[in-house]
């Protein structure tokens, strides 16, 4: 290549507890502050110490669409790292390692790579300069060869450790600077052209974005039980509970979580919970209750590798079928945001839709979206104005909580209002809330009420389907020979794959769903029919979205699929490679 690259992939690897996350944060935020784009992915295990972890960051002058495959630069912190990562480094790449810790001669492993052993112990012997701080030195060395401004790194360290003693900040800054200086003297700068655009972006995860989105759009009650990879939302909101005056409650289990938010929603408070598939399974009965009582709740399911306990720290989109769980028919909305920015707005939209339709709104995230760090443009807090739906302030005369209306939505009177007394029951009930399931069951009048009230609840879904659900987006040439179809968090990776395929001469576009249910079926079918061949790309075994489309639209032409279920998220390169195999089997 003649032109210097405008992106670079850096991998930092070591033991859990080696400070991978903090060095990754320093490196990522430094790049973000320089106006560069970052996509990072953290590979870790369900162990607190002793596991091997690595963080890969794809940094670019343009938006980077995945964390990439083979790294250009590897930063290795412990002795387990070289055999695992050296073979994966891109041809001609660079390896930084802590030579005070990794004493073997790594250069024998591959002769096409350049190895730099940074002697942490020789460079600093201060008391307090623990070996665990080597990650900061190696980050300093890395940014030097990437030609990035070290002052931004020093400033970030000051901000990051701002609450600690001055000596701690100074020590970290000195270690960072020693890395920069060492590399300036010993290492050759990489031929790369990383140019930031000067824009301020946030470096954050999808869980941060969900948390901020809930907070910004009026959540006042959040109840959850810890479950990876959803717990980040609980952690985020817990730190905001006092300052933003909301109740954040860790409950005894997920059954309690969903019932807590039903109670809060009933009393007129915006309420949400998040969990992963196992917890969601426990919540399913409560979901039906929210459907029956017509309570506005938001439930986020952050999918991980299933079934059962599955692979808690790995990626999968395997819970789409599960989102339809529950006995009987009741209305629900299912949304699957595509990235952190979308997560923020989707949280706001979900809270609005829940109150507009008085029904549960489910958000499907996954480990990749919820836990990977990426740069995101500062959010527009005014984009989704808070709309609370039909709430009746006072009652004149009789009040029917479940009044049959044309759109199926009955005005709410909040408990505590004089004159508005009613009972909301999980048993089938009439417009006033009076139960028709016991002594009145089977009477002709009850049959009629049942028909009317059940249809009223379900009618809300039809309005949502036609008024509020967004159609899938189509990017790339309209008349492409091949359409890659995805949903939720795979958006960027599929975009990246389309770029690679187009470069290789293929005619390809990308159809992507974020609003999964209820689908405006006829319009969706038109879009599907307009595609020449659709290949579904999903991180699950059974192509659950293909099944949903078949069920909802009758479209039965998706014959080939790309499925990944080993627990790792897609990258564009990975989709590209898998597609070659799929296409070879005609």
């Amino acid at each position, binding site marked *: 290549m003649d032109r210097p690259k405008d992106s670079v992939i850096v991998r930092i690897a070591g033991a859990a507890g080696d400070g991978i996350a903090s060095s990754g944060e320093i490196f990522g935020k430094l790049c*973000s*502050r320089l106006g560069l784009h970052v996509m990072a992915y953290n590979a870790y295990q369900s162990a607190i110490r002793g596991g091997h972890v690595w963080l890969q960051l794809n940094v670019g002058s343009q938006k980077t669409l995945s964390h990439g495959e083979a790294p250009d630069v590897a930063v290795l912190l412990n002795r387990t790292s070289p055999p695992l990562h050296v073979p994966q480094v891109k041809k001609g790449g660079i390896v930084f390692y802590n030579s005070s810790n990794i004493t073997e001669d790594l250069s024998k492993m591959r002769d096409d790579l350049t190895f730099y052993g940074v002697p942490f112990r020789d460079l600093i012997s201060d008391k307090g300069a623990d070996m665990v701080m080597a990650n900061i030195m190696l980050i300093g060395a890395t940014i030097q060869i990437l030609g990035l401004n070290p002052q931004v790194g020093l400033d970030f360290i000051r901000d990051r450790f701002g609450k600690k003693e001055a000596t701690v900040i100074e020590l970290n800054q000195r270690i960072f600077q020693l890395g920069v200086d060492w590399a300036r003297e010993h290492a050759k700068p990489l031929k790369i052209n990383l140019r930031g655009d000067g824009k301020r*972006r*946030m*470096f*954050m995860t999808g869980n941060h974005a969900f948390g*901020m989105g809930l*907070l*910004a*759009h*009026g959540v*006042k*009650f959040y109840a959850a039980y810890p479950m990876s990879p959803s717990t980040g939302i609980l952690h985020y909101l817990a730190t905001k509970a*006092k300052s*933003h*005056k*909301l*109740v954040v*409650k860790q*409950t*005894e*289990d997920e*059954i*309690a*979580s969903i*019932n*807590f938010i*039903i*109670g*809060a929603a*009933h*009393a*007129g*408070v*915006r*309420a949400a919970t998040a969990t992963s598939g196992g917890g969601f399974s426990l919540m399913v*009965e*409560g979901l039906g*209750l929210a459907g029956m*009582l017509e309570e506005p709740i938001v439930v986020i399911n952050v999918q991980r590798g299933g079934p059962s306990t599955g692979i808690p720290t790995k990626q999968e989109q395997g819970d789409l079928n599960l989102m339809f769980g529950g006995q009987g028919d009741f209305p629900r909305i299912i949304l699957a945001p595509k990235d952190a920015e979308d997560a923020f707005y989707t949280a706001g939209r979900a809270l609005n839709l829940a109150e507009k339709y008085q029904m549960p709104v489910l958000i499907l995230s996954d480990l990749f979206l919820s836990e990977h760090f990426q740069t995101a443009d*500062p959010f527009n*807090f005014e984009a989704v104005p*808070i709309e609370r739906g039909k709430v009746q302030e006072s009652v004149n005369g009789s009040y029917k909580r479940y009044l049959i209306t044309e759109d199926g939505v009955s005005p709410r009177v*909040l*408990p*505590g209002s*004089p*004159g*508005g*007394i*009613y*009972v*909301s*029951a*999980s048993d089938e009930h009439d417009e006033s*809330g*009076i*139960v028709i399931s*016991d*002594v009145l069951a089977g009477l002709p009048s009850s049959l009629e009420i049942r028909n009317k009230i059940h249809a009223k609840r379900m009618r809300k879904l039809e309005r949502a389907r036609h008024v509020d659900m967004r159609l899938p987006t189509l990017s790339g040439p309209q008349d492409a020979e091949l359409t890659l179809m995805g949903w939720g968090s795979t958006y960027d990776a599929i975009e990246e794959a389309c770029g690679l395929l187009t470069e290789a001469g293929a005619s390809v576009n990308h159809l992507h769903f974020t609003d999964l249910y209820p689908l405006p079926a006829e319009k969706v079918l038109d879009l599907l029919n307009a595609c020449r061949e659709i290949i579904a790309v999903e991180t699950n075994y059974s192509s659950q979205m293909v099944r949903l489309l078949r069920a909802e639209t009758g479209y039965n032409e998706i014959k080939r699929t790309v499925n990944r279920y080993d627990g790792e998220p897609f990258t564009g390169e990975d989709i590209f490679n898998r597609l070659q195999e799929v296409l070879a089997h005609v």
Partner: protein
Amino acid sequence: MSEMKDFNSEVHPDWCPGCGDFGLLSAMKKAFPLLNLEPHQIMTVSGIGCSSNLPGFINTYGLHTLHGRALPIAQAVKLANHEMTVIAVGGDGDGYGIGVGHLVHAMRRNIDMTYLVMNNSIYGLTTGQTSPTSGLKMKTKSTPFGNPELPLNPLTLALGSGCSFVARVYTGHVQQLIEVMKKAIEHQGFALVDTFSPCVTFNKINSHDFYKQRVKDINKNGHDPSDIFAAFREATCEAYIATGIFYQNERPCYEATEEETLREPLYKHRLGLTTEQQDQLVAEFL
């Protein structure tokens, strides 16, 4: 000022004639006016079971929810609108069987609400199976050769779980029930009132007569409700069946830890962020 009749519902109870639950319903309607409570100020929350049909039979705001899940919902209603008086009601299967996990945590959490359990030691609505409080060897439809499991003791469970108000009454003694109920509602914290509420259809052992012959009001006999050891003794006494207030302590209720947040009821909070708050949230990630 409210009167008993203000709490009458247009729906008549579907309980069997003679059911112990009538006593509790009547005590509620009598206790509320004594506490100067108006119907709209009360939220009655139940699970599923014969006794859980109660919210339909009383004129207050009501939530008739899922089997075993009354407490999570009731606690959240209280946190969302703490100006309301929140009463959870249900049976022994609901509260001590399927919902016992929530009960234990509700007791240690100590949100200011009252839980009235109509304990009949049988599953009535499902026509007579063993319950968590059915006696050892008791023959039921699901244990035709006798119940092989020891009954759960709700009072010692409560005392051991940090419950700040623990009481038990036989529903046939309505006057005592009214007095205990009043104190339970006035208590600032989680109050458990376990009641013996005989099922006249499916439990021929724990009948009205059974309790009439055995219960003894310990509050008339010098019991000290601040003495938790005495409470355990009375709760496990085999010579008679103790009733009354076993234990009460005035530890701060959960809402006290959320004083700032709950200064104004949560449901009345203004929603949305100031520009300054928005900037602060964004700045954390720059």
